[in-house]
């Protein structure tokens, strides 16, 4: 494959995949330690009805209304979970299970009933995205990276994902100390005067933002895998929080790159014509990394926090 072909077909999906993986893995580290790992799973299910409703109201597949719809749906789901938990005195895990399956079912039904399924949205797309379709038609070679005309033709998902990743990184960097302290010892954080509840809400909100942006670009399967697998593998490598985050970013990047390359070129090496799903392969590679870490990671046993 020539350089020009690589730039047109693979560069942008690769970069978007890496950005999405990093944006999800960063908050995933904290969610994992707070035992809220399944929030990513819940968010990526509940945004579907929001996105479909946004499409039905605005009538087009555009980023802003869909992000708004997804954000609205995430808020509705949080309110619903809280209401069910409080009103019915139901344990949080089960309340979450009730809400996210019901909202996802509602989203699927809306999708099938509306014209949306025929146009651009469909359930498969929502589940495993379409990373391969984000090609850069103007990318005529490596020189295009400095060519203003060609840069204008970049898929809009790239800029959006980059902005969100930057925002997530800024959030984590600026609130690092507060996040770490409130994650490990909430009581101590409270005595220091840290706004513990607000921090925890902000973390979930940032996770939701990352999930929605990544969902838009790469589908929900990567979102769930990247929220959990790289941080979980990193947790088995080290006891230090900064080390864990660094490992998780490395694992996330490795999964995205290796997964994309294996999906795109693996079948060619084996003599087949077309590629397999990149999103699925990225999730699979992340799982293999986790399996290796669970088998050989230096800190794999440790003491589980009570």
């Amino acid at each position, binding site marked *: 494959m020539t350089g020009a072909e690589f730039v047109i077909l693979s560069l942008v999906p690769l970069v978007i995949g890496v950005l999405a993986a990093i944006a999800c893995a960063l908050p995933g580290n904290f969610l994992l330690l707070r035992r809220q790992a399944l929030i990513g799973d819940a968010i990526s299910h509940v945004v579907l009805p929001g996105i479909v409703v946004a499409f039905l109201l605005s009538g087009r597949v555009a980023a802003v209304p869909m992000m708004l719809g997804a954000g609205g749906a995430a808020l509705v789901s949080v309110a619903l979970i809280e209401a069910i938990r409080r009103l019915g005195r139901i344990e949080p895990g089960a309340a979450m299970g009730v809400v996210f399956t019901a909202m996802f079912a509602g989203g699927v039904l809306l999708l099938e009933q509306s014209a949306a399924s025929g146009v651009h949205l469909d359930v498969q797309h929502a589940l495993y995205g379409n990373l391969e379709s984000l090609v850069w038609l103007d990318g005529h070679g490596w020189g295009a990276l400095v060519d203003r005309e060609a840069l204008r033709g970049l898929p809009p998902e790239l800029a959006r994902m980059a902005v969100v990743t930057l925002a997530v990184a800024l959030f984590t960097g600026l609130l690092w100390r507060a996040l770490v302290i409130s994650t490990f010892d909430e009581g101590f954080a409270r005595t220091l005067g840290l706004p513990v509840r607000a921090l925890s809400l902000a973390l979930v909100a940032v996770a939701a933002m990352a999930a929605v942006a990544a969902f838009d670009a790469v589908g929900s399967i990567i979102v769930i895998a990247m929220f959990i697998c790289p941080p979980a593998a990193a947790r088995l490598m080290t006891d230090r929080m900064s080390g864990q985050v660094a490992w998780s970013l490395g694992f996330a990047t490795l999964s995205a790159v290796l997964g994309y390359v294996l999906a795109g070129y693996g079948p060619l090496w084996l003599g087949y014509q077309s590629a397999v799903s990149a999103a699925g392969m990225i*999730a699979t590679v992340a799982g293999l990394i986790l399996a290796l870490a669970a088998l050989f990671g230096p800190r794999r046993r440790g003491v589980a926090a009570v």
Partner: protein
Amino acid sequence: MLWQALGLGLGYNATLVTLGAAMLGIAAGATGVFLYLARRALVSDAIGHATLPGVVAGYLVMVALGGEGRFLPGLMLGAAVSAGLGLACVSWLAARTRLHEDAAIGAVLSVFFGAGVVLLTVVQVLETGRQAGLETFLLGATAGMLRAEALGIAAGGAAVLALVVLLRRPMVAVAFDSEFAAGQGVNLRAVDLAMMGLALAITVVGLKVVGVVLIVALLIIPPVAARLWSERVSVIVALAGAIGGLSGYLGAAISATAPGLPTGPLIVLASFALFTLSLLFAPARGVLAAGLRYWRFQRRVHLRQGLLALASGYPVHDPLTLRLMRRQGLVRADGVVTPAGRAMAARARLDERRWHMLRSLPEFEAAAARHDGLSPLSEVLTPDQLAALDRRLGPEGAL
């Protein structure tokens, strides 16, 4: 059309499918109760998603062996194998590494599903131009289901239900207090394995109807809804079965009325509707009952405080209190206290004094613990005890 479908009037096959879905719902609801009580409801989400690679691999193997590929029992066998593998991964990660069960669930769910998606695209690569139709397993479909398949699903559901009934006692014991159960000689590992095995079995049976993504809902929503109605396990299991069965019946029947109505989501939404009804109208834990309880409590507090104020000769200004006392004929419209009101106020004051005395006496410690500032003491003590208390109160004790 809808009434025809609900009355099972849409032909032999649709009727079979609807009854099969109902049987599936009953079994799933009853199984889910034990997972929910053991606080492991979300494990079934991992089981559900982990079936996907097995389904596709089963298809690939059957095609490689020269078969048709869409033979349902073969696909179900593949699903069971990969879901079992996923379940083993969850237990292994949670037991042998420092990761918690929720992280293990999320990891297995996403990785197995991702692998399944990769295999799905492999099928597309191999079968250029021909659709294998395996995508229907994502969200479930009953359209074009064969008669034998519907019967198989109903039979599978019935078998799981029978096992649940058989194993209910040890499963309840472990769900409520696993240490006590172990002390009673229950084999915890075996019971846990049985519980997860039943969840796995119902997932595999329901795959074709509800789909890998949503099958978890059948194991979670009916038990949670049933839990709102009762505190007794036997009642909860029966109710969860009923709610699950009704959801399966309604979802499959409605889905048969028109194209573009996927079965899985409809079954889930039907069970969510039943859950919402339960949340609103359940007798003890329902929202309506809680509201009613609050309303009654507020009125009792206001009336009591109003009476005590009257007895001490203070004026009552609170509008709600005044309204309540007027309605009961304790106060006239112009604010003057009626004889009935005066008598009741005196009784309230006496009750307050009795409580005060009671709480200072050590021999009434048990009764004093029931002081809530509202219940009259005559509801707590026997007439003899009351008389004894009144003697200690002296002249104040005479009404």
